[in-house]
């Protein structure tokens, strides 16, 4: 059973009272998040400013270094080109046959009863574009014309390609040699003479 109470206090005169004051609650509920946001914003602002400064510094350094880098790239490209040219030239040089040794080997190999009337060694390159050292390698072509005389004139002419290939430099320069033609020499003389022609198969140079 409750009894009526006549409370003479107005609502405006009632105030909160508790273990935690309203000011503390206000600080806890409202001010703390604001302070936290402000603190985080400050940290982010400092970070932004620092990053912005670093970016500005880096841009200045980049502005200074960029021409040098371009120069380096250009020089590097030139260096690479030169290197490629050097490699091509090396390829060309390495494919060069030694004419001195080639002719010496041929001279040492030719029998006494054979006389050359023509010795032609020509070199050429297979490719018209040079991307690799192999494109620069030379291809050698040999043409030997001569006269074989004596009793074994025909046999010596037939054996000549094989004898030539037995020489080291000749074998290194040409893959194969073959007797392209041989005929009996006219003119009314008494000796047995044969005109012959030895040619090489096309072969890329690479003697050394």
């Amino acid at each position, binding site marked *: *059973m*409750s*009894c*009526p*109470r*006549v*409370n*003479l*206090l107005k*609502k405006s*005169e*009632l*105030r*909160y*009272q*508790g*273990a935690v004051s*309203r000011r503390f*609650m206000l600080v806890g509920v409202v001010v703390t998040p604001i302070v936290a946001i402000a603190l985080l914003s400050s940290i982010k602002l400092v970070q932004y400013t620092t990053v912005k400064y670093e970016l500005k510094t880096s841009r200045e350094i980049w502005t200074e270094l960029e021409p040098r880098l371009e120069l380096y790239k250009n020089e590097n490209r030139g260096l690479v080109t030169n290197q490629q040219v050097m490699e091509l030239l090396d390829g060309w040089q390495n494919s060069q046959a030694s004419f001195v040794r080639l002719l010496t080997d041929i001279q040492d190999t030719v029998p006494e009863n054979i006389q050359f009337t023509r010795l032609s060694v020509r070199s050429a390159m297979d490719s018209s574009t040079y991307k690799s050292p192999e494109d620069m390698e030379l291809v050698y072509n040999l043409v030997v014309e001569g006269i074989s005389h004596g009793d074994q004139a025909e046999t010596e002419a037939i054996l000549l390609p094989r004898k030539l290939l037995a020489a080291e430099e000749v074998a290194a320069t040409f893959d194969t040699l073959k007797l392209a033609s041989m005929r009996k020499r006219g003119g009314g003389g008494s000796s047995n003479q044969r005109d012959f022609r030895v040619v090489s198969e096309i072969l890329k140079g690479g003697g050394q």
Partner: protein
Amino acid sequence: MDMKALGKNRTQRKLGVLVGVDFATTATKVVQLKQSKGELALTGIDMLPAVDYSATANRMELPRNLSSYYGCLAYSGAESVVRMVHTPLPAEEATLPETELRKLLNVTDDFRVSAQLIKRGKGRQDSSLLAAAIPQDDVRYILNLFPAGPPAPASLEVAGLAFVSAFMNARADECADDAICLIDAGESVSHYVFMNKGVVVLVGKMDFGVRTLRNKLVADLGVDDELAASILDDRSINISTSLASVMAPITKQLSISKDFIERHQGCRVSKVYVSGGMSLLPSWSDELMNMIHTEVEPWSPLENIAIAPDIVSVEMNQQATRFAAAIGAAIGGFQDS
């Protein structure tokens, strides 16, 4: 108690501990009550010096054992007004505008007024409201005693009504079906409340108290105030004649009110319950019983309240009836929370 910030109604907060303070004429009575699972316990009680409304209000420091977040206050000033008012009340209204209340209570604008609906009239019947008024200056004075910190004032009642809550806590079951009269008689002012079946039907204030009796004895016997008080306490002299003469207008007012209630309510007032400092005078209750021809019974506001060990001294226990308003104010605070 300002619950706006918490988004709840002010009266909906559950309070566990409350301090009841009665600013009486001779002393400021303070109690601390604790409510747990519907059970009340007295955890502190003290009697502090009376406040002087004519002086500047300074912060009142309560003893540490009587501290609480909220306090329910009772005003015992002689200028208070209490009255049952009967007036038409719009169906959607729970109380009257202050201007109308002031008219009904016959007080000026410098009084703080408030009312509580007791019974809403049906149809064209008047509604009954329990109304009270106290001077605005005294309200401000009391609020200035607790400007900040604990206890925050949660309510302010007229002591002559606040004690009813204490009585209902102590004896509600005993008089749930009866018509009774409660009298709280203090130093200078007394209040009476007639209740029928637990509902307040009539209230009144009498400018009568222990001081009135002392003054009469001082005049009749030619003794000083201190000796008059002693005579009242120990009944060393037969003072029935003096008591009868000074109480005649009071008993007359009570008798008229009693007859009015019995006729108006169709009941019989079975008992008068007395409390307050005057009820401690052994002669007074007997004289009252003889005059109004109704059984008079003192009661203690500590009834039905558990008392913490070593809280109430023997002397304080004898004075318990003087704490009826302070305890009633705190109990009312629990009921409203």
